[in-house]
């Protein structure tokens, strides 16, 4: 018996030694951003295979759709994955790979402004040479040419822009016009909010008359406190990603904080996107090329393809977000589309006068921690 115990012990020690030996192969620090030079995406022949990770409802994936058109024109086989439900979750899933210089086989991600910046700062993105994208930089709207997060558009190309506001089921709650109305006990358990910190919290701050751009950490935490109280009382049904459309479609809710162009994935006929009386948030989702992306030539080819006005107009007609491409409005008018007159696809300055660009809190970590505690309450 004693012999058996000794053997077991020897085995256990040997096992541990092997494990420690393996561990010693890794370096001391985990994370902290990728070291080494930032590379520029290589251009070349547009062939082979291309994998794109993006949000749902951002293109016509059908047989006559934009993806198929690109495949037909170039011969590139596109794997178009709609696996971005929220920025944080998507980033969290890929971060360990990006840290190793791998993109999980993807050549393009579509992420929101602040997330593109965060990825770039960590060394997870490749830079883009403007000469490789003649169509993009010929047609990009002037208002989008030098955003604060990427003044020279070194690493990001806008895919679509949009507004954060309220989706309302007008048959059930016609009077909801402000984010404050979402806190009305009348709608208890019939309201959802986005789990995106930078979307929901600034909208609540706006409703309280606080300018999110000038807001202090205190302001952010106060707004989170208000949302927490509503969550604890059951006022808010759940926090969602882009999947808020499911609850709206099923008639589970009367209103949701959501995005202006999601009509293509909302089947509830009474649902209507409303600009909150106190203003909205403005953002763009951008195409970026991650480190380790295979076939960057095809990725650049895709970007240039999508910026042809004739292609961009198809995208707008299907997705109903704000196109970054010049000339789309005229083409839509030519087609006699109502979208040419819509404030959701071509918002006037008057329409967005109270809106603010999406921004992060001054000191992210404590605010994000408080926010996540509300989400997983």
């Amino acid at each position, binding site marked *: 018996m004693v012999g058996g115990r000794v053997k077991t012990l020897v085995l256990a020690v040997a*096992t541990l030694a092997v494990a420690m030996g393996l561990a010693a192969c890794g370096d001391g620090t*985990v994370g902290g951003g990728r070291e080494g030079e930032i590379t520029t995406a290589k251009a070349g022949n547009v062939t082979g295979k291309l994998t794109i990770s993006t949000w749902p409802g951002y293109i016509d994936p059908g047989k006559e759709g934009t993806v198929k058109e690109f495949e037909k024109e170039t011969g590139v086989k596109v794997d178009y994955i709609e696996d971005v439900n929220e920025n944080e979750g998507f980033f969290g899933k890929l971060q360990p790979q990006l840290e190793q210089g791998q993109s999980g086989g993807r050549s393009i991600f579509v992420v929101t402004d602040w997330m593109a910046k965060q990825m770039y700062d960590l060394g997870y993105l490749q830079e883009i040479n403007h000469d490789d994208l003649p169509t993009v930089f010929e047609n990009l709207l002037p208002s989008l040419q030098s955003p604060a997060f990427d003044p020279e558009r070194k690493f990001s190309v806008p895919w679509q822009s949009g507004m954060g506001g309220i989706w309302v089921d007008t048959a059930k709650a016609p009077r909801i016009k402000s984010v404050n109305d979402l806190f009305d006990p009348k709608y208890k358990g019939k309201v959802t909010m986005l789990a995106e910190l930078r979307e929901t919290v600034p909208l609540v701050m706006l409703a309280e008359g606080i300018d999110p751009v000038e807001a202090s950490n205190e302001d952010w935490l106060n707004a989170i406190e208000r949302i927490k109280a509503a969550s604890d009382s*059951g006022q*808010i049904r759940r926090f969602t990603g882009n999947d808020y459309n499911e609850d709206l479609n099923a*008639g*589970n809710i009367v209103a949701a904080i959501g995005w202006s162009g999601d009509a293509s994935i909302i089947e509830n006929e009474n649902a209507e996107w409303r600009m909150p009386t106190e203003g909205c948030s403005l953002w763009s989702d951008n195409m970026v090329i991650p480190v380790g992306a295979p076939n960057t030539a095809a990725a650049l080819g895709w970007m240039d393809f999508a910026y042809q006005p004739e292609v961009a107009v198809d995208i707008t007609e299907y997705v109903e977000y704000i196109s970054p491409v010049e000339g789309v409005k005229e083409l839509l008018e030519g087609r006699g589309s109502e979208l040419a007159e819509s404030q959701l696809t071509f918002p006037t300055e008057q329409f967005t006068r109270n809106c603010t660009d999406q921004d992060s809190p001054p000191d992210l970590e404590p605010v994000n921690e408080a926010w*996540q505690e509300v989400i*997983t*309450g």
Partner: protein
Amino acid sequence: MSLRQRLVPYGLLGPGLLWLVLFFVVPMYFMGELALRSGTLTTGYSFDWAWSNFPDSLSGHTEQIGRSFFYAGTATVLCLLISYPLAYAIAFRAGRYRTLLLFAVIAPFFTTYLIRTIAWKTILSDSSPVVSVLQTLSLVPPGGRVLATSGAVIAGLTYNFLPFMILPLYANLERLDLRLIEAAKDLYSSSRQAFLRVTLPLTMPGIVAGILLTFIPAFGDYINAQLLGGTQQAMVGNVIQSLYLNQRDYPEAAALSFLMMALILVIVLAYIRVAGTGAFMESEEETS
């Protein structure tokens, strides 16, 4: 014994041992090491024996841990109550439909877990027929809902882990020697007594195995709470997911995972002690 003969058992153990080392010991080591690091995403996480991650990971999350116990415990009890009669019926009363019924138990596994859970979102949506029937029966208050409540999460867990309870129970019941029940009846026991004093004790190994197989994965589950739950239904799995994916506090996420694993291990060991190793390891009971 020759040297070769003595080495044979180790050779046979080899593949299993290698598997354990590669897929259990090594990941555990990395996770333990990660739990002792500190830092942020931008500075990187460096190893500095940060034991404080362990108490930190528990603070503010006790409610979700308690909730996980409650949800997983309730789901396990419900699973047992549903599975036992079902497994009994399949084993003794199904006749030629036995294979078909067993297949029906396993069939849901042909669809992914995620899709099955999402399907429940549609079934239980506020205006669905199921919910209006429940409202008519006053099981749900008028204007009330099923989706985004604790009930929906527990129901989801029960549904998803049911086969893990049915199969061990069935395997156990199927081997039950029916002559023992006849003998009990010959000795003037009622059907109830025969069940309580013969069938139930003999199927304890199946019950114990079923409870473990159901409770452990249900405790760590986060899909049901995320898809079927609302704002106050997050389980500890959702907390770990949020720490890992949204706050990217990898060390705290690893520490919390470790603590939960230790907690479950302690509970399982205590449970086996109470339920008896005899019940868990049938062979020992037979030899004793």
